[in-house]
């Protein structure tokens, strides 16, 4: 204990007597290292979390109901809708019908019947425009034209990635139709049935479920797809409190709905590749951040080594008058620890007080996501501990190297 107390005194006094600018520079380096450790993985993970948030906001909601395995559609959709409507936690919901069709454009201008048709295989979703707007704010994704009017028929919303001029950046990845805009007529063919629609609006979103989709009113969908039983393909639910989705799902399942449909929370329903990418980015971010740790530990090593080397004579004198070299080593470890702690503390403050609120308010505009900065407290704590322990080691090793040297040589300044 007395060795530690002496080490503490020596360490604190060394920091106090050091140049203020030296201290500021070291703490600054440590703060940057900590931020590097947090921010690199935080932005990579935030990119996926941003995508997940967008999928939750613009498409899937908090609870997703789909057909049970083996069923083509959700059985007893109307009963399910009645029952979920009675849940007090429910904020809104949307019933969706899904199918696939061929969208054709520019067929009226086509003169050469042997030539290539301007067609694209598309996903078709039948919606109640009012319910869908309430659920996902689909009209916010409009980049041209207007939203579906529930009292009108013969109109369609087309996802931008089905239209060549909007999907040019993706080259031939998606099947597209050309040169269409709101007001143009297109033909939607499902099996042997075709129907003309006027493009009411064009949708573009960072959620592919929206940009790679076409929307028509559910009545027209059922007629076109001959879905007379009113059984839908997907019911998405938004709750007043999204975090309650697990308990609401359990209540839905226990009410018997679990027997007739597959009920999932958002977390269960989110595509697995998103979770996989998130985990991969987390590991990648930690790896990149760990390079920062190596740089910081080398920096601390050099700083402490030069410091200890410059004080080698005083280290020798302290040993000469009987001070245990462990006390001297502790002094340098404490120095390194104080620098790591202060740097990390500043890093934490910058992360949680400045960066996270800033990126929440001003997400980074990635092509498929509005990237935010994600820094879970537990992950931050783990990174702090890693940085702290490595810094302590980086402080200890040079102090150990210098302090273990010959006492008289140190006092006399001999090599």
């Amino acid at each position, binding site marked *: 204990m*007395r*060795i530690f*107390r*002496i080490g503490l*005194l*020596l360490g604190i*006094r*060394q920091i*106090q*007597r050091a140049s203020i600018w030296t201290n500021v520079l070291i703490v600054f380096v440590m703060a940057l290292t900590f931020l590097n450790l947090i921010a690199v993985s935080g932005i990579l993970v935030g990119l996926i979390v941003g995508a997940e948030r967008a999928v939750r906001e613009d498409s899937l909601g908090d609870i997703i109901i789909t057909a049970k395995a083996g069923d083509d559609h959700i059985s007893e959709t109307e009963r399910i809708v009645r029952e979920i409507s009675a849940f007090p936690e429910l904020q809104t919901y949307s019933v969706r019908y899904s199918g696939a069709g061929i969208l054709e454009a520019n067929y009226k201008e086509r003169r050469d019947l042997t030539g290539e048709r301007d067609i694209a295989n598309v996903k078709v979703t039948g919606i109640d425009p009012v319910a869908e707007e309430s659920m996902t704010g689909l009209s916010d994704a409009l980049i041209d034209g207007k939203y579906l009017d529930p009292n009108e028929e013969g109109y369609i919303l087309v996802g931008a990635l089905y239209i060549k001029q909007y999907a040019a950046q993706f080259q031939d990845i998606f099947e597209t139709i050309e040169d269409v805009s709101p007001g143009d007529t297109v033909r939607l063919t499902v099996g042997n049935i075709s129907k003309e629609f006027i493009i009411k609006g064009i949708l573009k979103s960072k959620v592919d479920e929206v940009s790679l989709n076409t929307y028509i009113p559910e009545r027209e969908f059922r007629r076109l797809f001959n879905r007379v039983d009113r059984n839908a393909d997907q019911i998405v639910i938004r709750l007043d409190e999204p975090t309650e989705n697990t308990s609401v799902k359990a209540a839905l399942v226990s009410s018997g709905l679990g027997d007739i449909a597959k009920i999932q929370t958002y977390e269960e329903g989110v595509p697995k590749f998103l979770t996989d990418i998130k985990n991969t980015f987390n590991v990648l971010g930690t790896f990149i951040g760990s390079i920062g740790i190596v740089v910081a530990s080398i920096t601390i090593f050099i700083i402490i080594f030069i410091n200890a080397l410059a004080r080698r*004579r*005083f280290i020798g*004198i*302290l*040993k*000469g*008058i*009987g*001070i*245990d*070299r462990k*006390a001297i080593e502790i002094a340098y470890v404490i120095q390194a620890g104080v620098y790591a702690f202060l740097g990390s503390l500043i890093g934490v403050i910058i992360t949680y007080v400045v960066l996270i609120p800033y990126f929440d308010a001003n997400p980074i505009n990635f092509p498929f996501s509005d990237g935010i900065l994600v820094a879970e407290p537990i992950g931050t704590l783990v990174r702090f501990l890693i940085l702290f322990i490595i810094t302590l080691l980086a402080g200890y090793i040079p102090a150990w190297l210098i302090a273990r040297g010959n*006492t*008289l040589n140190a*006092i006399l300044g001999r090599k």
Partner: protein
Amino acid sequence: MENKKPIIIASGITKSFGSGDLFTTILKGIDVTIIEGEFVAIMGKSGAGKSTLMYQLSVLDEPTSGTLTIANESIERKTENERTSFRLETLGYVFQDYALVPDLNAEENVMVPLVMRGMNWTEARAVARASIDAVGLPTKYKNLPAELSGGEQQRIAVARAVAGKPKILFADEPTANLDSFSSQQVIDLITSLNRDFGQTIVMVTHEREYALGCNRIIHMEDGRIIREEILKPLPE
């Protein structure tokens, strides 16, 4: 002096450096005994080996051969940690250039070895202040070494060396970097420790006038003791 109690017994001490063509022997078989309460000066020209002898006697260095017993303890078998602990408990040092820790103030410089010996902080502070008072610097407790003159720093170094009441005080040319006034102050202080408290002192010096307060002067030349000069016998 045969009836006095020896505190240092060195026998056949040699110290060599280097190897091959660079092999040099600095000390060539030194036999010396120092009595408890004695004030001994080691003198000689530069390169005579006086500082090297003092480093061996003060356990700061290990002799190449020979035996050394201090305060009835054999030194040569001690580990590095044991030697450090032995220096803390038994010996005090005053170096040429003060050798105060620049980050610690005067009081802390004196306190650190006392705390290392196991004193609590309050007790160590009181002892340190008493020791600083005794060297005549009662207003300098909180001054950093850089804020003290050379003479004041050396007096703080003496205060540090004697605060723990060591059995032997070693002083390696303690006036080498001081002006004549400060040198005399430091020599008076060291001499008074021996005269008033019976402190055993071994001092290396170039200046004969500073050795006049000693009981004995050991004269060295070329790594050997060539003469011993008794200035005043030890009191009974």
